[in-house]
């Protein structure tokens, strides 16, 4: 095979693009999990975001409005999850699964007449074939990629330094104590879930508008689940989400490049590598936790319903 076919600047730039959907979905889910809610519907919200973003962008001709549409779509689906888990007190694991199953079906239904269309192109800060490595890596991207990098930093600052962050964390660590202090646990979680949905929707829209850019049925192919794994990988720390997403994006692009460069490894085995590596990372982390080398940082109330008895 021919390693010289892989241009380092192009490689890094495309890793950044590949990482952004994962990063957006994962940072949203991190906030949700910080308040003690486990939403397994990331995949469903992402794909709804992908199709809503795509349709909005195609119909309005504006990719920026497309991202707004994607975020709204993801948020709308997450409202279903929020209502079910917070007001109907359903258990979070099956509700999240329902969200994913519904999202995959509904998105395919809504998007069937949009297959094969090319969406309007998101403008880049600098573009062209003659960019040098620095320009290509640092400046050659669309606005959403930079916003995607800013969100984890903002989330980190809010969780760490602000009163809102303290409340969010309190709800996730001990909902009874937060309730006793007078915080509306249900509504705080509701807000976090909708934020998570909007972020997942943005991630999905990035997939269909920039990364691929096209709409196909089931196009998320497990990205939502990898985002869930990323939250575990980052040990619920916002800034580590960036690192994790870039590592996973790097793997995804590397295997695509290997396919293109005519590697001797069969295509199917390259395609399964991101999933296999996700499993390895999860295993490695749980081994580290088990032998006390690092501590699990999961919020104490993760996955538990809250019902105020008075």
């Amino acid at each position, binding site marked *: 095979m021919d390693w010289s076919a892989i241009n380092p600047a192009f490689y890094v730039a495309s890793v950044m693009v590949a990482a952004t959907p994962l990063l957006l979905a994962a940072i949203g889910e991190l906030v949700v999990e910080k308040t003690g809610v486990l939403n*397994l519907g990331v995949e469903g919200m992402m794909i709804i975001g992908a199709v809503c973003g795509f349709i909005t962008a195609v119909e309005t001709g504006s990719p920026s409005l497309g991202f707004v549409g994607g975020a709204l779509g993801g948020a709308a689906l997450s409202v*279903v999850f929020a209502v*079910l888990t917070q007001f*109907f*007190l*359903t*258990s979070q*694991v*099956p*509700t999240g*699964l*329902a*969200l994913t*199953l*519904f*999202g*995959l*079906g*509904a*998105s*395919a*239904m809504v998007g*069937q007449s949009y297959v094969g269309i090319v969406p309007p192109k998101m403008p880049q800060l600098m573009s062209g074939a003659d960019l040098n490595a620095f320009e290509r890596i640092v400046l050659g991207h669309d606005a959403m990629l930079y916003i995607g990098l800013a969100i984890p930093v903002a989330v980190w600052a809010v969780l760490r330094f602000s009163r809102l962050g303290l409340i969010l964390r309190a709800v996730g660590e001990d909902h009874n104590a937060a309730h006793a202090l007078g915080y509306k646990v249900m509504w705080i979680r509701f807000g976090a879930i909708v934020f998570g949905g909007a972020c997942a929707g943005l991630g999905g829209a990035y997939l269909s508008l920039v990364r691929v850019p096209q709409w196909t*049925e089931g196009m998320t*192919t*497990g990205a939502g*689940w990898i985002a*869930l*794994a990323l939250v*575990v990988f980052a040990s619920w720390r916002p800034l580590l989400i960036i690192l994790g997403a870039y590592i996973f994006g790097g793997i995804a692009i590397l295997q695509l490049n290997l396919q293109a460069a005519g590697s001797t490894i*069969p295509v*199917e*085995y390259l*395609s*399964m590598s991101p*999933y*296999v590596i*996700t*499993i390895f990372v*999860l*295993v490695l982390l*749980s*081994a580290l*936790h*088990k032998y006390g080398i690092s501590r699990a940082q999961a919020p104490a109330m993760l996955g538990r319903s809250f*019902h105020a*008895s008075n």
Partner: protein
Amino acid sequence: MYKLEKRPNPSNLWAYLTPFLALIATMIAGGIMFWMLGKPPVDAIRTIFWDPLFNEQFAAYSRPQLLVKAAPLILIAIGLSIGFKAGVWNIGAEGQYVIGALCGAAVALAAYPLEAWWIFPAMVTAGAVGGFIWAMIPAILKIKLGTNEILVSLMLVYVALELLSSMSVGVLRNPDGNGFPGSRNLQQYASAHNAEIWQGSSVHWGVVAAFSAVVLAYVLMSKHRLGFQIKLAGAAPKAARFAGVNPHVITAVCLGISGALAGMAGMFEVAGPAGQVSIDFASGYGFTAIIVAFLGRLNPWGILAAGLLMSLTYIGGELAQFIIGLPASAISAFQGMLLFFLLAGELLVNYRIRRAAPRTVKEAV
């Protein structure tokens, strides 16, 4: 003002009623969804739920199909329900189904063209073992290291799908197939064909296995000590541990049973209705079975009914595609909706809605 009050015990009445309420709510919401797609809502619902059974023109074809599609759903859902009772979330049944099919088909293709009585039993065993081993990966990781079984079992679905496409263009490809992807057709190989047991009944061995699984699961969960321990581990993990239930054993048993059943389901499918290993063999039964398990309220008899109902929506959905041009994916959105309403209905089982007395001054002080 109304408020929710937790019932001292879950209501039995509502436990039986909620699946029906959820179904009615889904029909209404689904009707609205079809109407928004510009399809006649009443016609669509009737085509999905009524025509496959009673329409003179189609019923003769679609009635027998009911069992063919229900069998894998029931078989997989029975296994999943045991795990869900224990709080062991195997959501990778689709992967175990694919691996079971690959292992079962591999045995048949290795034996081809030999005709012998033992080939089919060996395929069933291989399918079950394949699914079992695939499910043991998350089980062992969970037991040894505490790795989350939800994420691992799900990631393994994607790995299994890649293996499937690798196998159908590689090792298992039909050598006489002129280079087309896909294996030999097992329907044309008498010893391996999962054929109808009685002519015209459409009952194949997978259907028999599904019904047996229902009965065995009922015996296990209601009459056997292990079933009690599984339920205890799910409802009260601490109490279970004090009672000497080993949570590791429960995890292994639940994932093992569900993996083996999903693997068998895949094998019966590949040797029967599907006929061959091909790139598009996986059809999402492993995910739909999650809905079936919940629709049946994790009870074996309930799952039997739920599997038949879900199979009806598949067949009705195909009819609706054909007659009124409903998109194929509408039916999976419809099935997802059903799960939402089912979960919401759970509220009525565990809580009651009480009219809260207006707060008196004394109370407020």
